[in-house]
């Protein structure tokens, strides 16, 4: 199981939860697990960066990056707000 931090702009799709526990051996499995439970996430996730232990998975093996149990994943979509 992996803890996934849900950013505020995605919380409406996760029933307001700030953190979810997901199952899977790779980043892709984790995200599939999340979208199977929260289908509304599916449209959003392509625009979110995924960080595993603070590293952008794009600089690792992307969606195929292996995830160790107990690690922390942060989902991060762009936010434009400043005012």
């Amino acid at each position, binding site marked *: 199981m992996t803890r996934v931090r849900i950013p505020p702009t995605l919380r409406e799709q996760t029933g307001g939860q700030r953190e979810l526990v997901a199952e899977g051996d790779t980043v892709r499995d984790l995200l599939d697990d999340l979208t199977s439970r929260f289908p509304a996430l599916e449209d*959003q996730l392509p*625009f979110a*960066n995924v960080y595993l232990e*603070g590293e*952008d998975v*794009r600089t690792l093996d992307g969606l195929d990056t292996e995830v160790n149990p107990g690690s922390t994943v942060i989902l*991060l979509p762009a936010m*434009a707000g*400043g*005012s």
Partner: protein
Amino acid sequence: MPSYRELLQQVRAEISELDSERARELIDGGEPVVVDVREQDEWDEGHIPRAVHIPRGHLESRIERAAPDPSRRVLLYCSAGNRSAFAAKTLEEMGYEDVVSLAGGFTDWKRNGYPVELQSGLDAPRRARYSRHLLIPEVGEQGQLKLLESKILLIGAGGLGSPASLYLAAAGVGRLGIVDADVVDESNLQRQIVHSTERLGEAKVESAKRTIEALNPDVEVVAYKERLTSENVERILADGWDVIVDGADNFPTRYLVNDASIWHDIPVVHGSIYRFEGQVTVFKPGVGPCYRCLFPTPPPPELAPSCAEGGVLGVLPGVIGSLQANEALKLALGIGEPLIGRLLLFDALSAEFNEVKLRRDPDCPVCGEHPTITEYIDYVEFCAGTREPA
């Protein structure tokens, strides 16, 4: 009881002295920590280049910051070599192992025609206003003079721009540009602390200018009552800015600021906020990633609510905008480790900071090895959500 003359002779016999010629050799070699122990007015009239100024009366309390390593040589000087002799004695008593005093002092140094650093210096009112900066070794008089010469451009005089502009102004940043087309609205006042109830309906740039000039008359505010666009960005940047603080409220402006900053080689202190969470980072062209490396494609508008649509806790821009001011001051001063290649995340509800690493994308269309975007595009269309994610 010994007289002053006897005491001086006794101290001079106990410490090491050197003449101006030898002192210059050492200083040119970059070896010793050079400390000027004279008073402020003497220092202002000229001093040895690269010297640190610690008036004799503050020597014991401040020397450790200037010379943390007691085994490193310390060269002390005053005007004639007497005060520095006593100062050398004091440092030896504090455990400094290699202390020398310049015989003949600054007077002899000048007589030899050796280099003298003259600076405009801060006048007495400024010395009082910025006294808490002058006490910090990393800022000091040189740093404060640098801030007074600095030019920082703020995009937006809203939630983030309010605290950022106030702290930059209070710090004595000499010139602040502010770009914003809006007028002060009642719904702004829950967080936009540079404005006030009596300014309702006034242009935000004018309101901010009045607040800032009342806070610190040293600051010149350049007000741009317009929205930053591909058409005006070159004119605004032509006014010459050292740092951009991005507190925009929409994606087209974010991407425009990014592209312009890369082409003009200006670091951007980026901040964004939503509800209880904020992000801060520094995009420094050529050194770290840019906004497009981080977010190659903006999310479609329906998936990216703004603060006007989703709300924001009033204090959140206070936290994030202040962090932006902190980064901008560090960049202007050239101190510390700016948030380059690091994105700081703040969650107000859990009161937690997180940090993720950002990396340059070699295929970035603007800052990558083979850029494909080399001039301003239609940023509104780019962000209109007609594209597929990268």
